[in-house]
């Protein structure tokens, strides 16, 4: 793999100057990979001969990727139920819609549940997406009980024999334990009807080191199965995703690259890693 050829072509063959090392270091820190992770990479790479540097850096980064499956569960006997969670404003609603759109394109039957009953007009936002995509949306009253919306949706998905149920939830900071408990309740209530197969945490690519705590706390309260890395169309390189994968073992399953339904791809490790060093 020659991922970082531009930067490493300078280094390859010649003497690696301390300015070169600083450049690699800066690049990784500026991707939000974290100071400690970056320090480790640099220490490791410096021990090697210069013609091995690129390979060493690349392989180490790649070794931090999660080894868990990056595809989503697909049941044949019951609806595959997906809970979409995350802190405020990361792109949960948009990602729920994009995922619904991708599944529908593959010929699956999909139901969306508007379980964000809290944020102003969040229900309408998902309904608008549903109309655009031709996907039904189950919703309740604003400020109502999110768990009961999820329950109704799970009941319908099961009764109608649908392939997928995607539940959009309200944004919540992981530090609010009451809200984290509420999320656990949403999950438990759905599971009275049908098991929850995927819990996806939406992480904004601009997120800094706080993303690790986010992932850990959400994982504790709702047993995450993976991540959606949103807003990769911006200037942020999303290094926090690799830091999270390393720390928690959770795999990024999808990447969001824009505001339209189609701006959504399965995670491509090679492409991602090569974007880390600019």
């Amino acid at each position, binding site marked *: 793999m020659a991922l970082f050829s531009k930067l490493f072509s300078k280094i390859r063959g010649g003497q690696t100057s301390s300015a070169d090392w600083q450049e690699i270091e*800066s690049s990784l*820190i*500026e*991707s*939000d990979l*974290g*100071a*400690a992770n970056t320090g480790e990479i640099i220490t490791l790479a410096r021990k090697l001969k210069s013609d091995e540097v690129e390979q060493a850096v690349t392989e180490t980064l790649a070794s931090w990727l999660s080894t868990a499956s990056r595809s989503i569960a697909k049941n044949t006997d019951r609806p595959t139920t997906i809970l979409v969670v995350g*802190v*405020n*404003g*990361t*792109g949960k609603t948009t990602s729920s819609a994009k995922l619904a759109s991708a599944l529908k394109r593959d010929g699956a039957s999909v139901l969306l549940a508007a379980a964000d009953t*809290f*944020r*102003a*007009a*969040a229900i*309408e*936002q998902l*309904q*608008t*997406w549903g109309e*655009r995509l031709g996907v039904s949306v189950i919703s309740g009253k*604003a400020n109502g009980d999110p768990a009961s919306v999820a329950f109704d949706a799970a009941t319908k998905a099961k009764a109608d024999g649908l392939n997928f149920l995607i539940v959009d939830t309200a944004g919540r*900071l*992981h*530090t*609010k*334990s*009451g809200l984290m408990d509420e999320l656990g309740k949403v999950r438990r209530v759905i599971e009275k009807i049908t098991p929850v197969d995927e819990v996806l945490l939406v992480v*904004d*690519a*601009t*997120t*800094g*080191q*706080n*993303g*690790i*705590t*986010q992932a850990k706390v959400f994982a504790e309260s709702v047993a995450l199965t993976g991540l959606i890395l949103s*807003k990769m*169309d*911006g*200037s*942020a*390189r999303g*290094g*926090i995703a690799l830091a999270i994968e390393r*720390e928690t073992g959770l795999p990024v399953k999808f990447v969001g690259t824009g*505001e339209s339904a189609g701006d959504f791809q399965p995670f491509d490790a090679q492409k991602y890693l090569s974007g880390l060093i600019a």
Partner: protein
Amino acid sequence: MFESLSSKFASAFSSLRSKGRIKESDLDDIFGEIRSALLDSDVSLEVTNNFISTIDDKARAVLGELNKSTNPSQAIFDIVHQELIEILGGSARRIRLAKKPPTVILLTGLQGAGKTSLAGKLAKYLKDQGNTPLLVASDLQRPNAVTQLQVVGESVKVPVFAPEAGNGVGDPVAVAKAGVKFAEDKFHNIVIVDTAGRLGVDAELMQQAAKIRDAISPDEILFVVDAMIGQDAVRTAQAFQEGVGFDAVVLTKLDGDARGGAALSISQVTGRPIMFAATGEKVTDFDLFYPERMASRILGMGDIATLAETAKNAFDSETASKLESKFASGEDFTLDDFLSQLEAMKKMGSMSKLLGMLPGANSGAMKKQLEQFDDSELIRTQAIVQSMTPAERGEPKLLNGSRRARIAKGSGRAVSEVNALMDRFAAAQKMMRQMRSGKGMPNIPGMPSLPGMSGMPNAAAPAKIAPPKKKSKSGNPAKRAAEEAL
């Protein structure tokens, strides 16, 4: 693995404090630690490096002098603190009202930064100061952003100008322009224009933002940014500065545990001050930004100034003076006083947020407890006290088993909860006595205890490195306790 910036600062300084004389190599160590602490808090690499080299120069220049002083580590601490304040933008800045109304405020920022919620909070804040703001719905991009602003506007009772339903239809430039015109006609003295989120790299949308700006010539352009943003903060802020320009920054979602390193980076790189901080999802979770206080918070010194101010606003002057005279006369602190303090506390807002302002609140163990803190405990406590008769409140000794059982029943709580409360009250009463006798006060009087939190400020390292005590002593017990906690 992820510790907060404050606790890292605290540990770095506590090792420095243990040394009598500071050598050049000690400085290398501490500045190395501060560097990684800043990076872990998402301060941009460039700003971090500049910051370190500045404090390094300053400290080395005076090292000889410092070592002659009685407390050299304190002096270094002061250098770091001062420099942080400097970077955060010096003194606080307010909205400048235009000479000729309406004052036009334009909100810009990335997708998901929190502009629409902020528009509502800002409108409420300005309205509460006697202004007549108008909200303008110029985010016609994100599905139902217009509806969201309408709901928010309704909840703060501020009119919303929304001629277009949005969802990709309509011209945001035209709406913004018509909104300002509408405000002029209807004599609104302030217009707040909400716009769609956009990426710094999206040239087309940045141009649209510039067009909105040119159409309405805003008096203040505010750049709204999520406190959780990482290293991209600088690139993004620069892109917005070049694309639309902005006068000040608003930091959102500061109620999380992100240390807000972006704040440092953005003010430093763009030279624009941070004006407001949003600290929760309620419309009142909105504060002016004080660089001084933020710097103190980062350094683990707590945010006593904000706490004291909040306390002052919540205690009505009658309650406060009653407590004051009581305090001065040496009378005992009763359950009635306790009750009025609980009521004041409720007015002050989320307890965990308030407690988070105390020195040491960001240290690991304390932080965990704060996050677990349940604000409804306040309500439960209040219910228990309210179920007591006036006589019982005046003379807690009356509370025998059967009375406690009655109170438990009346308040719908368990007897064990009543007992626990009475124990805590006895402790609070004792503390009040201690405080009066000048022994210092480890806690806010009347505050429902946090598990394991007694002696809080002392329990955490950062309190040890706090600057000398302020001389002024407030008569308000909560405020005074807060001051003494410094």
